[in-house]
């Protein structure tokens, strides 16, 4: 393997990890922090991608697509939390079954409306094409943008969790939900806001991911599984852990494809099994 090849695979792993981070950070908020088992997270990704695409088709403006994808996923997520999941707090099996059922229904509705063909966004001119890059000369601009977007999401989440009252409420709610309510905080409203925020990140991932690679039926399952693995490897409820998990999974996929393409699909799960065996709470997770 040449050094150029090494750098290319590293960059591909990093940029794929960045996309995974954007999607999985929303999953980490909902599953890791609020302890809501949301098996429809991939569906929120797909809702963001498809509804973003409708707006993109109409306006030909990629930034409007981003706004539409995030809003659609956030609204759908908030409705899910208010109408279904809010009533099942702490009942993981029920949450899992309801969200799996919901994801099947929504996937069918999206299939009926958008058809089964793969769709893809074209990023705006500023993000299109290639940018000069050391060693490998040129690298796709949009992939570099993915890293920037992931860093922005990570910083924003860190600021929300550590510098805002909402963040204090989220962290306190993770520790002792009942006591937080006894302090006068409407915990159910906090849960809706967190779910909407996590869903919006899935929607953002839908449009960004749909610009990097085509999306269609089945993409939801792929991103749900990836988000699960990222959060399990990185540690539940830790944004830093999610970033580490996303980079590990992104790298594993890209290096697997580069070195042994036939078996690359199992690498991610081997890593997950290894982490579960050695450190069950994940790399950055707290022991329960």
């Amino acid at each position, binding site marked *: 393997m040449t050094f150029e090849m090494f750098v290319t695979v590293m960059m591909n792993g990093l940029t794929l990890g960045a996309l995974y981070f954007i999607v999985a950070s929303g999953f980490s908020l909902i599953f890791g922090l609020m302890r809501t088992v949301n098996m429809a997270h991939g569906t929120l990704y797909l809702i963001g991608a498809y509804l973003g695409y409708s707006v993109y088709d109409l306006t030909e403006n990629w930034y409007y697509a981003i706004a539409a994808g995030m809003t659609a996923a956030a609204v759908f997520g908030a409705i899910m939390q208010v109408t279904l999941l809010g009533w099942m707090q702490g009942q993981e099996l029920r949450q899992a079954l309801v969200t799996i059922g919901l994801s099947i229904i929504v996937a069918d509705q999206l299939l009926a409306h958008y058809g089964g063909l793969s769709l893809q966004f074209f990023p705006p001119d500023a993000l299109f094409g290639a940018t000069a890059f050391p060693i490998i000369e040129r690298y796709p601009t949009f992939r570099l943008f993915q890293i920037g977007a992931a860093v922005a999401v990570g910083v924003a989440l860190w600021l929300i969790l550590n510098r805002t*009252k909402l963040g204090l409420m989220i*962290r*306190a709610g993770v520790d*002792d939900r009942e*006591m937080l309510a*006894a302090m*006068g905080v409407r915990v159910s409203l906090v849960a809706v806001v967190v779910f909407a925020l996590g869903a919006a990140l899935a929607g953002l991932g839908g449009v960004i991911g749909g610009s990097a690679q085509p999306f269609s039926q089945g993409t939801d399952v792929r991103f749900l599984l990836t988000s699960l693995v990222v959060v399990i490897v990185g540690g539940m409820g830790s944004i830093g852990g999610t970033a580490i998990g996303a980079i590990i999974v992104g790298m594993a996929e890209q290096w697997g494809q580069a070195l042994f393409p036939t078996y690359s699909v199992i690498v991610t799960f081997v890593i997950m099994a290894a982490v579960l065996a050695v450190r069950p709470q994940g790399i950055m997770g707290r022991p329960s």
Partner: protein
Amino acid sequence: MLEIKDVHFHYGQAHVLQGVDLAIGDEPLALIGRNGMGKTTLCHSIMGMARISRGSIRFQGTEIQGRRPDHIARSGIALVPQGRRVFPSLTVDEHLRLVAKGRNRPWTIERVYETFPRLAERKRNGGAQLSGGEQQMLAIARALLTNPRLVIMDEPSEGLAPVIVDHLCIVLRDLAKSGMGILLVEQNLGVATTVCDRVAVMVTGRIAATMPSQDLLEDETAQRRWLGVSAHA
């Protein structure tokens, strides 16, 4: 201020509260009783954290039974729970910022730090890093910052060193003097009678008696019958 009438609570087959009647006015009231008599369940019932099966709980003339805990807290009741239950992930300062509602209220973060200087020294420490006494101060401070009309304190002296308990008694008496309603749930008769002039005794889910603290202090037979101990702080 708070009127509790014929409150019943069932936990599965167990009839934990069996018709509790209690009235709390502006004077602080101590609720004492042995372990397992239903004191904590009554606190949780008032806060809406336990759903009662029958009865009425009125606060300042309004029925609060059946309301959510956050609603009850916003109506002016605060709980200092048994075991402190501070948030391990939050620092002292974050605890206070979480609850503080602004500067034009009687209790502000600044006033809390003046009242509990030890918390000011530990403001960057996490809830789990504090000693038992510091956690108790934080739990009280957190409750005060909601600027309640009534504070329910569930065994605040539990597990604290005697010198810390003495300091706690001074703080609670000052709070009572400021006109804040206090329901002090205690097993420590010394603390209860130091802070409150009246005590209610809870026995197997009922209020067995309400009397001046001095009367209970002087009646060793009643102490043995209801509490199984004699009074000493």
